[in-house]
């Protein structure tokens, strides 16, 4: 079997790629995609430890996470729509009117 460390490093890599996207891009849709990457990094971890411990719970949990991610995307798209309507742009750096 593959040792768990490899899964963890893979997960960390996926997570950091998602994070990199969030830190360097300004398009809200790209943001949503990056967040998906980060969520899936978490799923990898869940499944990896499920195998590690011989317990099915992690697998089921990752399913639920995927479903939650779907809900998140639905709401996220709605927010992006409102963002676009209000600022005529999907650039997240333009929406700074509510800071202080």
């Amino acid at each position, binding site marked *: 079997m*593959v040792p768990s460390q490899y899964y*963890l490093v893979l997960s960390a890599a996926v997570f*950091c790629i998602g994070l990199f996207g969030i830190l360097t891009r300004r398009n809200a849709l790209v943001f949503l995609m990056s967040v998906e990457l980060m969520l899936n990094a978490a799923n990898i971890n869940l499944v990896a430890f499920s195998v590690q411990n011989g317990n099915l719970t992690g697998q089921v949990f990752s399913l639920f996470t995927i479903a939650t991610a779907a809900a998140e995307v639905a*709401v996220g798209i709605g927010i992006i729509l*409102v963002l676009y309507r209000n600022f005529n742009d999907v650039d997240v750096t333009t929406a700074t009117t509510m800071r202080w």
Partner: protein
Amino acid sequence: MTTRPRLKLGSHLLPGLAAVALFVVMAAAFLSAQFPAPQGFGSGSITASIGYAIFDLSGPITSEYFLVAFEIMGVLLVAALVGAVMLAREEGGLGPLSGSGSRDVRADGAIETETESDH
């Protein structure tokens, strides 16, 4: 769109260094960690067992049961869908048929029609 995608380099990539740093730290931590050999699931279909676990039935691989979580997830999805519709709708408008001419509204209407068709 005749231009192909280009890699855009510049100072806006600077915050990304934080993500790289995070990866380095996590990788260092994980690689130095010691795990025992994974236990695995032995024989039996994992997928079938997941199905059984979700519906509170006992399958080939024993597991906890998740029926309540499953139902709550269903509610969550419906709520998210309704929330998305609420957000996407034009404020005070009746949807795509209200037809008050601007480009934004048409774009919204298109999305909204699509969402409603998902029902």
